[in-house]
């Protein structure tokens, strides 16, 4: 009998999957994801396409414009800057690195936020109040000032250190978001039902609540990634970032130091900014795509 039901149940099951999965095939979400994944892959497989050692100082001729400009060469298609780095290599090394800082910082912030938010929303009472007051107070600290101060003291800053520093200010937002979500979900009928089915707190949070919070968590995460990249690029552009390896922000800093704007070397400062813009846009696309997935009203589907 078991086999019989299993067989006959495949048809409706397929139907269910198809219908459920369709909202995830969201154009904005997919477009954003593709760009971000491509940039991330550059960090892993970039070596196969281009000699990334050219990102080091003095490996190329200085001040070459991009290939299509007079004086440009296809040896260095995006030109070079004044200390002899190849821009193509710089961008291919820098963009994934900037993205990585953002991802690390946002992940740490998110994990802390999820843990604290769940604790606060679930346990309530005094613990909830302490966490809430602490995160509210933390939000009011002007993060850039603190980051500048710390970065100025720490010499030889690493990309990871940078990420940790930024993560320090990336957790209160998610904490409040998750707490609010837990508070509303806690009263849902299916949470009560799960308790009547003998579910423990772990089950309730991770099996019942988490799937329903995922779209919110993911949307908040992408927002945090852009925030962290922006913060790190800002610090780097002020010259407070890692100095040895190029990141997008650091490149802007060097370009600025060398008066690239006045010298008309637009490829030096313009390309990193363009790339940052691309990253932000695709993260934004992911965020609104996820919003449409999570909120059926935005995608114009009716219930049932």
């Amino acid at each position, binding site marked *: 009998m078991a086999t019989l039901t299993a067989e006959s149940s495949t048809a409706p099951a397929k139907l269910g999957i198809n*219908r459920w999965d*369709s909202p995830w095939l969201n154009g904005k979400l997919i477009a954003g994801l593709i760009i971000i994944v491509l940039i991330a892959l550059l960090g892993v497989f970039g070596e196969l396409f281009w000699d990334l050692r050219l990102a080091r100082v003095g490996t190329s001729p200085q001040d070459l414009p991009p290939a299509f400009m007079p004086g440009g060469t296809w040896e260095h298609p995006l030109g070079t800057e004044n200390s002899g780095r190849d821009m193509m290599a710089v961008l291919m090394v820098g963009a994934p690195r900037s993205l990585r800082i953002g991802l690390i910082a946002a992940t740490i912030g998110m994990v802390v936020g999820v843990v604290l938010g769940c604790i606060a929303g679930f346990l309530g009472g005094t613990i909830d109040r302490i966490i809430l007051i602490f995160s509210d107070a933390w939000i009011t600290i002007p993060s850039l000032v603190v980051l500048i101060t710390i970065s100025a003291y720490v010499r030889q800053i690493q990309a990871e250190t940078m990420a940790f520093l930024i993560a320090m200010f990336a957790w209160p937002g998610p904490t409040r978001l998750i707490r609010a979500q837990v508070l509303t979900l806690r009263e849902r009928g299916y949470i009560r039902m799960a308790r009547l089915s003998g579910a423990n707190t772990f089950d309730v949070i991770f099996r019942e609540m988490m799937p329903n919070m995922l779209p919110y968590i993911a949307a908040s995460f992408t927002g945090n990634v852009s925030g962290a990249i922006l913060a790190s690029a800002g610090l780097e552009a002020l010259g407070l970032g890692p100095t040895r390896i190029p990141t997008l922000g650091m490149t802007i800093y060097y370009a600025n130091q060398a008066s690239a704007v006045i010298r008309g070397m637009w490829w030096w400062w313009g390309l990193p900014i363009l790339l940052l813009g691309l990253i932000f846009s695709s993260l934004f696309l992911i965020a609104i795509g996820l919003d449409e997935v999570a909120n059926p009203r935005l995608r*114009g*589907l*009716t219930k049932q």
Partner: protein
Amino acid sequence: MTTLQTETNGAAPAAQTRQVVLNVNELRVHYNTTRGDVIAVNGISFQVYQGETIGLVGESGCGKTTTAMAILRLIQPPGRIVGGRIQLEDIDLAALNEKQLRAVRWRKLALIPQGAMNSLNPVMRIKNQLGDAITTHVGRMSKEALKQRILDLLNQVGLPARVYDMYPHELSGGMKQRVCVAMAIALNPPLIIADEPTSALDVVVQRVVAQTLMDVKQRLNVSMILIGHDMGLQAQLVDRLIVMYAGNIVEIAPVKKAFGTPLHPYTQLLIASIPSIKEKKPLKVTEGLTHDLRNPPPGCVFQLRCPFAREVCRAAKPPLKEYARDHLAACHIYDQPALFPDVQQPNLQEA
């Protein structure tokens, strides 16, 4: 204004002229979904006469609220009115543009929405909410006249004058609901549509609000469409009953006939499944599901649940026909009685 001479058949009282306030003709509303159109209202026609209360009943999803929203031209995408005419007095509602509609709503056609009491603005005093509703449609009027009008309205729905200066949160659910009734009658519309106006209220309060509604209606001699699923309330309040099933009207009957000699098997089921407080009776359990509204089967809409369904029901859709004075049903049992020799025909000429 249109007048309609009702057909009289011998036994019925002398010919009588009734003014038609609302005439809905072949109204059809579809909802777009990813898997095809849901036919929410499938070409329904009915009239509402001057001063009468029409009850619109049926299960959730049968199209009763959609019908009301279509009359108000408040269907939101993905829904749309596909066809039909909606004539309110001498206005063709279906042909109006958004600006003209705004002028007609409230003044000609008022709505008491489901859970209306939650639609009051929590940060506005009652006087301002009522005042705004009046001035936006009537135009500016003197402060004194406006106040007098509002107080008069509150009085009409049985609320004390001090409600004038109060905020919604200071009122109980029943009082808020009566403020909504006051808003609906503020401009003396010829037609009020009330969508489950008492559904969230306690039994005792429900009775107070329902009685207020009826008192007001009678005093102003307006027509009303009362949407609801509580058959007890319908029995108490309405003059005629329209029974809907899966987007179609299956029966229209004066309320006493609807409860006394229901014709359509669905109406019979609806009446039989009302839990009584007067007598203990065995529960009447019916099986069966409504068909998928995206592709209705040919024939009668009720065939999947009907205890009398047979071949003709699966082949042809029964027409909505008048079988006794004012008593219409869409069922083959009465249209083609020869095919149903085993089903007893009710005595239709009875009072």
